[in-house]
């Protein structure tokens, strides 16, 4: 693909000190997360490991969503379904492996080295097809179409009676990664944390790359990008596919960790939750949504113990944040970097 934009001048490589100053919240956050299993075992409360595994996996989705949302200006309301496709691929392959049946003539798999790449591929494919339809339309249509596709995939899995339908699908049998046992609770937590760290690095690189520059420019002023001779559609589509693939990866890990998938993982409300996580954390930073996901999962876990009606305060918080706090939690952390007008 010939590209009329000159390569951007390589950014003056920032000193280690500057990098630390700009990114200390996430470095601290990841370091603290790494202590979770230790603290949980000290408190003799393995529930926390489960809880933070959930947070880390949701963080992956929120970060991948923010790649198209915060940097591409695309409000996708179908990331729960992309997540769900990844999750179901792992679960369905495990199901066929356990039952020793075939799917379209292929055997199932309990090896995650096979099923996770397939899950990523399936989610990327779904994202690509839905992107082809939805990205040709403008902003507001895009939101509603992604919401419709989310609902379509939700109904699809509800209707798949052979895979449990509305009740969901239990993964029986032993999942492993090329023979390695990774599903043990603590091991699996560190696996997900490692994956999240790698994803953050990759997305940070991607945002700074030529591709990322064009994506951000498209979000700010698509017409100018077109005037520069860059066709924005293929960049947006590529970004959407990448984002969908990562959501699929997160879903695959979710299915592995839970040993269970259900259509409720694909509900459109969950898609809305991911948007809330991204905004809550702060969209101007690649890692902002990690904090949104952490806060969301903690609220979701602990608010119900105070009140049965936890969605009421949560909804009010969301409304208040939209009205008053435009830069997300990152603003509160005082890193003072989210006001640069990176997004529209």
């Amino acid at each position, binding site marked *: 693909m010939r590209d009329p934009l000159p390569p951007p001048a390589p950014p003056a490589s920032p000193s280690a000190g500057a990098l630390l100053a700009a990114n200390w919240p996430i470095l601290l956050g990841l370091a603290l997360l790494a202590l979770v299993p230790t603290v949980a075992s000290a408190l003799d409360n393995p529930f926390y490991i489960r809880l933070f595994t959930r947070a880390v996996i949701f963080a992956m989705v929120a970060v991948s969503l923010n790649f198209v949302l915060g940097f591409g200006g695309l409000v996708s309301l179908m990331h729960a379904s992309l997540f769900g496709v990844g999750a179901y691929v792992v679960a369905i392959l495990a199901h066929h492996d356990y039952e020793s049946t075939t799917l379209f003539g292929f055997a199932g798999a309990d090896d995650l080295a096979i099923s996770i790449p397939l899950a990523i591929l399936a989610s990327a494919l779904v994202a690509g097809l839905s992107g082809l*339809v939805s990205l040709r*339309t403008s902003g507001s249509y895009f939101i509603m179409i992604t*919401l*419709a596709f989310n*609902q379509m995939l939700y109904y699809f899995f509800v209707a*798949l009676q052979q895979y449990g339908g509305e009740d969901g699908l239990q993964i029986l049998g032993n999942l492993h990664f090329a023979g390695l046992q990774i599903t043990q609770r603590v091991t699996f937590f560190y696996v997900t944390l490692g994956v999240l760290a790698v994803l953050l690095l990759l997305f940070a690189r991607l945002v700074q790359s030529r591709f990322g520059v064009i994506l951000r420019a498209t979000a700010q002023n698509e017409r100018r990008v077109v005037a520069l001779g860059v066709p924005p559609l293929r960049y947006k589509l590529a970004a959407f596919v990448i984002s969908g693939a990562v959501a699929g990866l997160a879903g695959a890990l979710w299915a592995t960790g839970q040993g269970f998938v259900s259509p409720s993982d694909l509900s459109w409300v969950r898609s*809305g939750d991911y948007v809330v996580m991204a905004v809550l954390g702060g969209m101007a930073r690649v890692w902002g949504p990690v904090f949104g996901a952490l806060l969301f999962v903690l609220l979701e876990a602990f608010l119900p113990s105070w009140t049965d*009606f936890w969605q*009421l305060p949560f909804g009010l918080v*969301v409304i208040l944040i939209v009205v008053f706090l435009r830069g997300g939690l990152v603003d509160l952390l005082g890193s003072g970097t989210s006001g640069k007008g990176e997004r529209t």
Partner: protein
Amino acid sequence: MDPGLFVEQSLNGVQLGVQLFLMSAGLTLVFGIMNLINLAHGSLYMAGAFFAAAFIKLTGSFMLALALAIPATAILGALMELVVLRRFYGRSHLDQVLVTFGLILVFNDLVRLVWGVVPVAMPTPEFLSGSVTIFEGVRYPAFRLAILAVGLLVALGLYVVVVHTRTGMWIRAGASNRAMASALGVDVQLVFGLVFAAGAALAGLAGMMAGPITAVQVGMGEPILILALVVTVIGGIGSIRGAFIAALMIGVVDTFGRVLLPPALGSMVIFMLMAVILAWRPKGLFPVHA
């Protein structure tokens, strides 16, 4: 398919279609005039059903309950617009999605708080509880026929208002070019407030009429909201005519899809229809904005 079943399913399809139209009419105008995405429109559908159920309990009369619940939903809609949504006209679509998403959570929990999580029963009105013989051997519930008739009447009324009155002219002007309409002296804000309240009333009406057929419960507005969004997108944002045609199309296609196709495919067919139409016409069938 034997003719009796065909007629019955066609009526079911049109009945779903008119209900979708009642939902989409407000949605598409709000969207067209103020460029506001209102995900909480489904909450008004739910509110309508709960108001009606409460008023039936209070008054014992379905018609009286309807007469009370419709203005109640309109007032709720007007309040929603006045207190929250009015601040969000100029804001990004993302902010609108977030704030209306927050409203859904709040409304759902408020309903849980007041009515509990158990679905509320809503009796079919006495005089519509029977069924009507369409032709030899085909009987159809009178209540569903009534829904169909009310929906078509409302559609006709809307057509007259929107196409043949001055207010309607303002609405159309606002939907096709808000800035120009405003410059020409139309009080777009006022028109919009009225449209929002009327749209809320129609969504509420759809919810009330669905009450005796489906369960009156928390979250009942969300599946139909998403169908209404599909209708809005297919019909073309801001177009009442588009919403009507798209609503009937979605109603009929969805009903027959579920009867004729295997379930996994039948539940997806309307969304595929949407994808095909949008691939062909990215701005819907009847685009209002040139």
